[in-house]
């Protein structure tokens, strides 16, 4: 029934539950993301989408259930370890290193593959390593059309560029799975269209699997292979963009709400 089941799953969530005190933010969520897919997670505000991302990236430990990445259970791993395994993410409320330059923002993310220690770094015995990180940073910034801004302070960039920089920084960790939390938030239709093409382009260029939370339906419907719909922490629908567009429950729970908002 599902074309992707033949593809090896990069990410799998099995009955993940996340409770905060009495609130169940994510309730028995099961989903899977195949290699190379672009998958969307949609749902009204407060549905538990960001919480699901936080369960994947180790910011929260799920109350129960399991998250598997390339077949490996992520339980108990901290966010930095999970990033090292190959999951990178952006944040709904952009989290750049605000007072640092564009270049340093990306350079910092390059460090997770560096073979140096605090002594060699302080005494500048890691010149080769440092030069490699800088060269890779330059290359990535050029590829993302951000090189001209390399000396700008991150917080001084316009909003759209901050989002681009945040994605570039995530790419610097060399992920195989990229999680995007509302990448088009605050963008106008033209910017959203550019972002849509951009997402497909980086998927192809860096051989990524992309799992994204998004409210802009044009973007979601255009590029997602499959869509999961969350409402009050529960998955209420799952399928291709056409399936979802015609699903009455989704229209009531979600599309109705966005029209109000």
């Amino acid at each position: 029934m599902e074309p992707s089941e033949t593809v090896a799953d990069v990410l799998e969530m099995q009955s993940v539950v996340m409770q905060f005190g009495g609130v169940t933010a994510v309730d028995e969520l099961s989903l899977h993301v195949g290699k190379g897919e672009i998958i969307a997670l949609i749902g009204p505000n407060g549905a538990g989408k960001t919480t699901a991302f936080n369960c994947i990236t180790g910011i929260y430990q799920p109350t129960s259930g399991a998250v598997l990445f390339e077949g490996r259970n992520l339980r108990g791993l901290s966010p930095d370890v999970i990033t090292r395994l190959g999951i990178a993410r952006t944040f709904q409320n952009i989290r750049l290193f605000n007072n640092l330059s564009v270049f340093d923002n990306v350079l910092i993310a390059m460090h997770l593959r560096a073979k140096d220690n605090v002594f060699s770094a302080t005494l500048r015995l890691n010149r080769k390593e440092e030069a490699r990180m800088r060269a890779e940073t330059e290359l990535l910034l050029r590829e993302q059309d951000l090189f001209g801004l390399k000396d700008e302070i991150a917080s001084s960039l316009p909003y759209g560029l901050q989002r681009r920089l945040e994605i570039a920084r995530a790419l610097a960790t060399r992920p195989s799975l990229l999680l995007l939390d509302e990448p088009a938030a605050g963008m106008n239709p033209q910017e959203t269209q550019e972002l849509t093409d951009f997402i497909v382009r980086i998927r192809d260029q860096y051989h990524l699997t992309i799992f994204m939370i998004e409210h802009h339906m044009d973007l979601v419907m255009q590029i997602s292979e499959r869509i999961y719909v969350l409402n009050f922490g529960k998955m209420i629908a799952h399928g291709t963009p056409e399936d979802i567009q015609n699903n009455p429950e989704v229209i009531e729970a979600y599309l109705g709400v966005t029209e109000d908002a």
Partner: protein
Amino acid sequence: MDQSFHAMGERRRNIVLSLCLAGLLLACCGYLQANKYEYNYAISIIERSLIYAVVAVSMNLVNGFTGLFSLGQAGFMAIGAYVTAILTIPTANRPSVYYISGIHPWIENLHAPALLALILGGLAAAACAALIGIPVLRLKSDYLAIATLGFAEIIRALIAAPMMDRITNGSYGLKSIPGFSSIFQVLALAACSIGLMVLLINSSYGRMFKAIREDEIAAEAMGINLFRTKELSFVISSFFAGISGGMLAMFMRSIDSKTFQVSLTYDILLIVVIGGIGSVTGSVLGAFLVTAGREILRFFDEPFFLGGVQVPLFRPGFRMVIFSLLLMIVVLFYSKGLMGTNEFSWNSICRFFGRKERKKQEGRVPHDGAK
């Protein structure tokens, strides 16, 4: 190519300017040193400033560059100071130092040259920091301030405790500590310590410290191990606090537990805040300003007569009132300190003067030099 040529010229200019400045400072120090009996007072102010500059930069490393709030500086300085003192007091003088309760046999003949003693003092402080850091740095950063403040007080209480009499000489303190033979020793130690910290701050590890300061969650999402990186910053900072404590012991020649009260930490915090949280240059400037300022304001403590009438406020302690007022003014009107997060650089200084020059020239020859 034009640009790189320009950068190379700038670089050479900066090296020349730096050498000139260093030469000038060394010449000044040499002059003071040559006339050390005459300039005793100035030398002691400079030496104390240099020692405070080391500990201020170390505090800035944790508080300004890593974004943790640590208040343990006095405690780490005390460890460095006592280790240095115990290891360097000449064995012949020890009976007279420990004349009340005697000296513990373990340390009776334990002696090390000053430089080794300083490094061991720094390592002891670093080891204590590592132990505190393990439980505390896993918690939210607010706990660090309380834990380090408590730690510093415990260290002070331990030093003064009767059961430590035969090691720390209890409340009598330690004296006969060999001092520095010249201002150059202090200068060299301070320059090496601060130089190493600057190299660290500008290294790939320094960038990780700053990333944590900017946003812990984002830093972690970039693969930075929060605990290990914070612990590293905290331990290195404490190492240099220990070094400066040892230097303070050598500078003062005699120490006791009161030297390392919480007020010492506050003094250093003040230096860091006045200089600018996140600026090494600021901490160094702040160390000189605060240390010298204290001394210059000393006349407020002396009785002051105006037309034969004694002005009532001028008495011991008034100096500190003035000092606190000045501090409040600085914090209120220069909330980022003197330097903010900026550093000294020849380029910015040249740009500053260059702009003035250019304005003058433009005034005279309006249509020239529009390259």
